[in-house]
């Protein structure tokens, strides 16, 4: 691994990585059962430098912003490298957002350049919101068919210059990326992450979960996500490891990739991990009685021998068939994006497959705490990583309070939002809005949320204010969306739901027509963003002088209602 303490920027470290590991394979890209691409670090360099030079020829310079909206693939990483090489700031956006949301964030970020895929561009270019994002001056589109109408964009594959680009150095405190943690509604939250944030996070994470040449990481989480950006790009590249991309995420092709490419690490969201558990459990249950008894015995033996620490070699012998199904080289599954239930973590650990469970939020880099497997504990989100400080503020009698974090991996603030930034920090500590306690062994245990938001099992952060637009002009006096657990606090990190609080007009009833109108509007939202039920409140919503709803006070009033009977399901 490169000694990252010697580097000032992500770009400088990546540049040296390409030279240091030039003969190693850095990328494999497969589409279904077809391998589309296999690149060494040298070949990656040869693809990226002509792009970096063309960006510079187009006037792209230090601190200029460029956005990537792409599925996980080699051109994502090649483009990101070129942006960093040219001294730019990367704005990675989630390809699953709608065109309207994309344009809103592109405008907010101030990106000059957009790099995207043709199928995404087809939708983006047709969206009316395009005209509002005048800051986007150049669009590069990958994989466009020969006869395609590019709607003003240029072909990524042809945007290459033979001349060598000039490396643009950046300082550790400069912004490297603007990462949107949420806020596609009224108030986009663009976390300004510095080069230092990434350099420090990489050192901390790889101290527990190391990469080296020969390691193969299967990249499934979207690369715009902090976890995949770190363990599916920056981490493996600075260690000479290889990243495997799949263009199709159908379960059968993902399963096949483990064995075909002998995967070492993979990151998954809890939903996928749980699904994997269900599938495995069903297969174990189908075993004939004798074999099942033998299998359960071997699991118990493995459990006994791995109580204090993982013993991969032993587990692979005892439970060979299970490990073979994962390719035989899997060292750990990294799980993130949302809270994972302990029994799922324990299930995999008992099979000799450690799950790197942790806790993080975009604002604090990739991870704040991670299970160090010494020993493995399924009931916690692990101990703070080296260099991370965690404290519990105003703990109740049971030790539970708000989690505060301080480290070199924490963002400098939200783009264009000084007030929101100030509200999010206290004396240099980031207020996470999550509730938890630290136990006798220094492990963090999470127990709920203080913020008005939910996180789905697919790792999506949903802020109520971001989805309210869909209910605009609803024929009621006023409405407001809340996370149910924000109103009625619950010591739980799973099964979170949104509710729509309604104040009807005088004499108005909650009719079938109104119900159907709400259902229809709700269905326009992506399925994971939908509200679960309606709560009626027969009083004016408290408002500020500028007529904004005072959400906290309204939540207190709603809290006086009985949760179960108050929520009318949709």
């Amino acid at each position, binding site marked *: 691994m490169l000694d990252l303490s010697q580097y000032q920027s992500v770009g400088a470290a990546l540049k040296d990585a390409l030279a240091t590991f030039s003969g190693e394979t850095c990328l494999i890209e497969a589409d279904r059962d077809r391998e589309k691409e296999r690149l060494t670090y040298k070949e990656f360099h040869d693809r990226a430098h002509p792009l970096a030079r063309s960006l510079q020829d187009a006037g792209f310079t230090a601190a200029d912003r460029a956005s990537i909206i792409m599925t996980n693939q080699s051109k994502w990483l090649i483009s990101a490298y070129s942006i960093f090489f040219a001294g730019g700031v990367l704005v990675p956006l989630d390809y699953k957002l709608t065109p309207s949301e994309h344009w809103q964030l592109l405008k907010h970020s101030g990106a000059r350049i957009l790099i995207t*895929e043709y*199928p995404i561009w087809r939708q983006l270019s047709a969206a009316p919101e395009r005209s509002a994002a005048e800051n986007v001056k150049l669009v590069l589109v990958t994989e466009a068919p020969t006869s395609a109408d590019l709607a003003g964009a240029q072909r990524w594959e042809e945007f290459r210059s033979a001349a060598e680009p000039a490396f643009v150095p950046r300082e550790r405190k400069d912004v490297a990326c603007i990462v949107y943690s949420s806020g596609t509604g009224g108030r986009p939250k663009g976390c300004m992450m510095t080069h230092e944030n990434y350099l420090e996070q990489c050192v901390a994470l790889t101290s527990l979960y190391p990469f080296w040449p020969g390691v193969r990481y299967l990249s499934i989480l979207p690369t715009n996500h902090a976890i995949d950006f770190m363990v599916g790009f920056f981490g493996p590249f600075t260690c000479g490891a290889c990243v495997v991309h799949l263009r199709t995420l*159908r*379960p059968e092709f993902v399963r096949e990739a483990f064995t075909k490419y002998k995967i070492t690490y993979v990151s998954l969201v809890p939903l996928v991990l749980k699904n994997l558990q269900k599938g495995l459990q069903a297969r174990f249950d189908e075993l004939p009685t004798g074999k099942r008894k033998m299998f359960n015995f071997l699991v118990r033996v493995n459990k006994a021998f791995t109580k204090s620490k993982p013993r991969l070699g032993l587990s692979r012998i005892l439970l060979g068939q299970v490990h073979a199904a994962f390719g035989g080289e899997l060292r750990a599954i990294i799980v993130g994006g949302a809270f994972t239930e302990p029994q799922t973590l324990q299930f995999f650990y008992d099979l000799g497959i450690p799950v790197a469970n942790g806790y993080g939020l975009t604002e604090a880099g990739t991870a704040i705490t991670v299970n160090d497997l010494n020993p493995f504990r399924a009931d916690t989100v692990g101990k703070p990583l080296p260099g991370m400080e965690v404290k519990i503020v105003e703990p109740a009698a049971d030790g539970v309070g708000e989690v505060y974090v301080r480290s070199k991996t924490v963002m400098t603030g939200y783009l264009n939002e000084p007030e929101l930034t100030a509200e999010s920090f206290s004396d240099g500590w980031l207020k996470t809005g999550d509730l938890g306690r630290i136990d006798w062994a220094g492990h963090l245990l999470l127990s709920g949320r203080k913020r008005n938001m939910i996180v789905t099992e697919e790792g999506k952060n949903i802020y109520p204010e971001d989805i309210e637009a869909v209910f605009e002009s609803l024929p009621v006096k006023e409405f407001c969306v809340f996370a149910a657990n924000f109103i009625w606090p619950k010591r739980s990190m799973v099964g979170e739901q949104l509710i729509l609080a309604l104040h009807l007009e005088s004499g108005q009833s909650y009719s079938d027509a109104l119900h159907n109108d709400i259902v229809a509007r709700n269905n326009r939202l992506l399925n*994971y963003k939908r509200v679960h039920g309606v709560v009626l409140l027969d009083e004016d919503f408290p408002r500020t002088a500028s007529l904004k709803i005072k959400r906290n006070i309204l939540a207190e009033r709603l809290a006086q209602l009985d949760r179960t009977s108050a929520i009318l399901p949709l």
Partner: protein
Amino acid sequence: MRNLDQTTQEVIELATQHFKVTAGTLEPSDDFFKKLGIDSLQALELLSRLENHFGIELPDYEVQGVSDFRTLAERIQSRL
């Protein structure tokens, strides 16, 4: 060559079989996530089955954001 209505009907029949629901309960405009109570992974499994049935490949981006049978059938129809 199938028309869109036929394709939609076949999509609904396959979903009915795959998720073992009572025949005749699914409608073209139904939100399959909600009606079947499935998550995105289960929807991907259905897609694989549909691909085999219709003999096509549906790239992931084509079905991004699709949640009703009719729209899903339209995406399939465009590749037949």
